[in-house]
């Protein structure tokens, strides 16, 4: 993948609105390959951690039901413009993706 994820973070009043779009195939492990008939192995993000200036604000455990190229949106109270958002993900194969943005 060229870039793991795109993040946009803006202030809406006194709350930071963070939107992230991640590139990941998110295979559930339940689909069958049309040609071979075999199950396509599970390959999906299962852990997401978001930090604000280094402090964890969101810690999520995802399952196979999250769709391909997941879109994550969340709000943070008490953030301000210029603060740094970092989102780290790990998938079931142990591969990591990361993205960061400053709040606009």
């Amino acid at each position, binding site marked *: 993948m*060229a870039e793991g994820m*795109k993040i*946009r973070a803006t202030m809406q009043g006194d709350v930071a609105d963070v*939107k992230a*779009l991640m*590139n990941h195939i998110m295979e559930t492990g339940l689909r069958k390959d049309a040609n071979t008939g075999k199950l396509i192995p599970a390959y999906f993000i299962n852990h997401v951690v978001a930090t604000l200036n280094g402090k964890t604000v969101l810690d999520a455990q995802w399952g196979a039901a999250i769709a391909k*190229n997941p*879109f994550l949106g969340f709000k943070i109270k008490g953030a301000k413009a210029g603060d740094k958002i970092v989102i780290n993900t790990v998938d079931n194969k142990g591969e990591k993706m990361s993205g960061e943005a400053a709040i606009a």
Partner: protein
Amino acid sequence: MRRRLTVFLACLFLWGSLAAVAGPAEDRKALLEHYKQRLPDVKFEDYVLGALALNRDARDQYESIMTFPPFVNDVDDGRKTWEKPFKNGKTFASCFAGGGKNVAGRYPYFDNGEGRLITFENALNACLRRNDEPELKYGSNALGLLSAYVKSLSDGMKVQVKVEGAAALAAYEKGKAYYYTRRGQLNFSCASCHIDNVGNFIRSEQMSPMIGQAAHWPEFRAGTELTTLQKRFQQCNSQTRAVPLEYNSEEYNNLEYFLTYMSNGLPMQTPVFRK
């Protein structure tokens, strides 16, 4: 002398007004009047929103999604195709005025030299051909994503399609005839839904006005399914149980010409989200 001049001017005026009776400008004016009556609360610029202009809640949801639409990565793929140099070192930008910015609003146009209609996708392929690169297949994902990115460089540009000359007018008239002809097992014409029944519902879907439709293609259905204007024509044909035509067929190109002309004056935005 003065009397002869007056008669001459009167004849000119009469000839001019007769010539102006039936033509694209009059067609468009008549349609605008029709929509003003049927949709009195919709502002002209909002016609590009289609049925979204008729439902405040749907429009709010649309605007919320468009702040960060799911297709940004797909459009990026189109950008990569646009920026990648050909084998001869040139890029797509060299084929278009202004490097491709603010050009899409003039397509389709009738090339009197070549004697044929040129759609924007034709122009992209012509660029590939001129630079000894293989053309992209009409209806392909690659051409669709490229088109989605390049047309975004014309965001905000007003649609400004010209119909000048006999051959161009003939193509426009063919497109118009297709639009108004009933077809398929359901025996609908495009006009049946988008002119006669604008604002009414077919099952759960509200019919959008024809003016404004052509200003925002390709679009992404459900945010991720790339749909070009001609793919939508195929879908509309299928939905009325008519036989869909081929991408880049003469009928579809003429139809695209007619429809895009009708959206003249409206601001383009590409691509957009639709449900």
